[in-house]
């Protein structure tokens, strides 16, 4: 590959960025420990690591958000001080954050010039930006309407605006933090084409991601971080996803949970012609029909916002709808007093919501309280007619947390003090241990570490093998393909099609997700 040859040719020149022995502590927590790394000019360099491995801290130091306690930063071979973001920008560093730093009701142009205006009046700056953006768009496939308001743009276009902002500030080094988390497969491919052409123009790109497939696909070199330390820097060509995963976690990890063939039984969930109209009068579900059988996992794929959330909410009992839903052959109420979550639970439906921090947990409450929510009226939690039995709830939570390997297994800690993966395990423990007939699960591994992903996937497969029905909504195609026994794809409130995982691929599913009937 041309780019790799370029890498070797320039390896003798000064690296674009060199960090020497960077350390940073927050109180007693050592976020970065003696980190050294060289990123060669004109390459795409991946950085992988679990949540809390110190990737973000390291990048924040590079972008002037934090000052390192010790260590040295060299840009193009020269030592530099980066006390604030302005200095980082001057040093030629541009950053595309995971959560975009855009002003929603400003136009693209206004966002681009913010902070680098030419003078006290806006008009000359806007005119210049319009010209420069036109040039950049032609050069790198970075088309966006310069006069559109950010809030009217798709997520993929918003990300392009972030990249344009960096390029407009003449960044030579571009750092992208989890850039594909919010993109469709098509948008991600487009992003990678942009990154490749930027690299070929001599820009240096640092890509922070937890998706090993992306690392393998686009990077030239990859560095692995674990618990604040730099574990290894490898040439991408000479490594494998399995090796990277093992180095990230510190033990062997199964990237694909093995599962035998499904033994589907009777229909547990039958949905017919389900419709939802939201408060703004927009039809979110336009006649959904599906079934989930005992002993199978039905994967619901789709780009976020195409009705999957509404489907889960209706089935979970906090969104009204019209149509017909049967569980174990009996109709359940979709409106009225008996359409609530309590009634659903009594009918054997458990729900692990998509947004666990807003709907699955109360973040300020303890783990044991969270383990009881929704089932707090269960007889074993009552001391007598008036009082709840806190001790019983605590003991029960403790046991569940140990069975689900929640770390630390301390039931008295607040939910917010657990990592994303462990929060998810608490929710799963609460819902699965009640032995439901049907488990609804949304984004089971969003924001979850690779080690915890393995555990969660194993539990879902075990639930299926125990003869339960699982309806899983996920935006991660890899997850859909590896866990599901059947896959339906949703687009714009409709089901675009049904596929079997071993008879389809990401490309076909991606087309269905984009609304193109295959």
């Amino acid at each position: 590959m041309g780019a790799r040859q370029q890498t070797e040719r320039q390896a003798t020149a000064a690296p674009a960025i060199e960090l020497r022995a960077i350390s940073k502590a927050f109180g007693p927590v050592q976020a970065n420990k003696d980190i050294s790394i060289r990123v060669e000019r004109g390459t795409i360099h991946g950085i992988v690591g679990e949540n809390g491995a110190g990737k973000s801290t390291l990048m924040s130091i590079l972008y002037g958000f934090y000052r390192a306690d010790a260590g040295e930063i060299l840009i193009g071979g020269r030592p530099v001080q980066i006390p604030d973001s302005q200095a980082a920008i001057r040093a030629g560093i541009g950053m595309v954050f995971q959560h975009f730093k855009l002003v929603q009701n400003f136009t693209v142009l206004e966002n681009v010039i913010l902070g680098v205006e030419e003078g006290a009046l806006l008009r000359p700056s806007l005119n210049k930006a319009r010209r420069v953006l036109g040039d950049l768009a032609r050069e790198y496939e970075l088309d966006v309407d310069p006069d559109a308001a950010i809030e009217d743009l798709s997520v993929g276009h918003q990300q392009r605006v972030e990249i344009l902002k960096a390029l407009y500030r003449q960044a030579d080094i571009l750092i992208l933090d989890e850039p594909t988390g919010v993109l469709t497969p098509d948008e991600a491919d487009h992003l990678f084409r942009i990154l490749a052409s930027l690299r070929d123009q001599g820009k240096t790109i640092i890509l922070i991601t937890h998706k090993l497939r992306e690392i393998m696909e686009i990077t030239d070199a990859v560095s692995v971080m674990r618990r604040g330390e730099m574990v290894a820097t490898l040439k991408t060509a000479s490594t494998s996803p399995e090796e990277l995963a093992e180095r990230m976690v510190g033990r062997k990890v199964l990237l694909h949970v093995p599962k035998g063939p499904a033994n589907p039984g009777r229909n547990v969930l039958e949905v017919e012609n389900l419709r939802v109209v939201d408060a703004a009068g927009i039809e979110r579900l336009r006649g959904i029909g599906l079934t989930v059988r005992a002993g199978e996992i039905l994967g619901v794929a789709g780009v976020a916002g195409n009705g999957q959330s509404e489907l889960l909410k209706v089935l979970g009992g906090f969104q009204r709808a019209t149509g017909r839903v049967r569980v174990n052959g009996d109709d359940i109420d979709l409106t009225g007093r008996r359409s609530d979550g309590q009634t659903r639970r009594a009918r054997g439906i458990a729900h692990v919501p998509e947004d666990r921090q807003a709907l699955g947990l109360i973040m300020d409450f303890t783990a044991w309280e969270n383990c009881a929510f929704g089932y707090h009226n269960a007889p074993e939690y009552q001391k007598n007619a008036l009082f709840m039995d806190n001790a019983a709830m605590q003991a029960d939570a403790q046991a569940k947390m140990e069975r689900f390997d929640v770390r630390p297994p301390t039931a008295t800690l607040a939910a917010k003090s657990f990592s994303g993966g462990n929060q998810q395990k608490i929710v799963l423990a609460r819902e699965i241990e009640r032995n439901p007939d049907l488990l609804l699960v949304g984004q089971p591994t969003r924001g979850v570490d690779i080690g915890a992903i393995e555990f969660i996937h194993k539990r879902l497969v075990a639930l299926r093998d125990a003869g339960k029905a699982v309806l899983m909504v996920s935006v991660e195609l890899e997850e859909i393909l590896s866990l599901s026994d059947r896959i339906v794809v949703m687009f714009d409130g409709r089901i675009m099609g049904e596929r079997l995982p071993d008879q389809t691929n990401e490309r076909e599913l991606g087309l269905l997700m984009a609304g193109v009937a295959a």
Partner: protein
Amino acid sequence: MDLMTALQILDSTVRLGTPLLLACLAGLYSERAGIFDIGLEGKMLMAAFFSGAVAFVTGSVWLGLIAGIAGAMSLAVVHGLASITFRGNQLISGVAINFLASGLTVLIGQKWFALGGRTPALSGEGRFQPIVLPFADSLRDVPVIGPVYYELISGHTALVYVAFAAVPISWWLLFRTRFGLRLRAVGENPAAVDTAGISVTRLRYAAVAIAGLLTGIAGAYLATGLSAGFVKEMTAGRGFIALAALIFAKWRPVPALGATMLFGLLEAVANRYQNIDLGGVVIPVQAMQALPYVLTVIILAGFVGKAIPPRAGGEPYVKER
């Protein structure tokens, strides 16, 4: 209703709407930068007291104006410290400022002048005098245009003209200059401003200081333009009505002019028509006087359509990890 009556009501509207307009613009700068300011009332009251007191003691209304601005500014700095530097709750800080101003003005007033919290009546150079614009007298007899020019446009105090000039200036500043772009950005997404390498703290202090300046002028106008001296609690909820007008105007300068003048008009009508007789049923004066407040409630209850406040409003900016 003849032309003269209408003009007199409108003239009164302008005079009564001016302090609302100034306070509304003050709130606009502050809230556009992401700092909620329910302390407009307190700052105006403080400014009214100090302008009245200093104007009386020195006999100069201009020194009074400066003292009033200084009084409002000092409270603005308190609000800035509490809500920007120490990341406190902006509503609580605002409430505290209102209480502080309400108590402090009466306390100091009693100590200095021993008139039960009021300042002695101002006269002559101690008050802002009406400015008669050029040709007002000679055009007075021209039909329609003459009376409009003479009654309505000419003959106000300098601060009224300042307030009206502040509307286009604010629009230009907010939407045509670098400062305005950054100010609006910091109220919408301070993280975007921070990552662009601009100081969020400095921008927000600038906005809070402008709010102090404008409430200072508003308070000085109350004590030395509209009235002749400071009276205990003389702001009478104008700071809150200005906030209602700000929501009504959806945080934009030109609609802010319209909204505050509407409130001014209601007050003017209430002042002029004490009891309205509707063929046997007499609407009492209290009902008319309550009108601006009733309208405030209606507006705040959301009958004005969707008003989207600046997205980062009320949130102290904390850099995320």
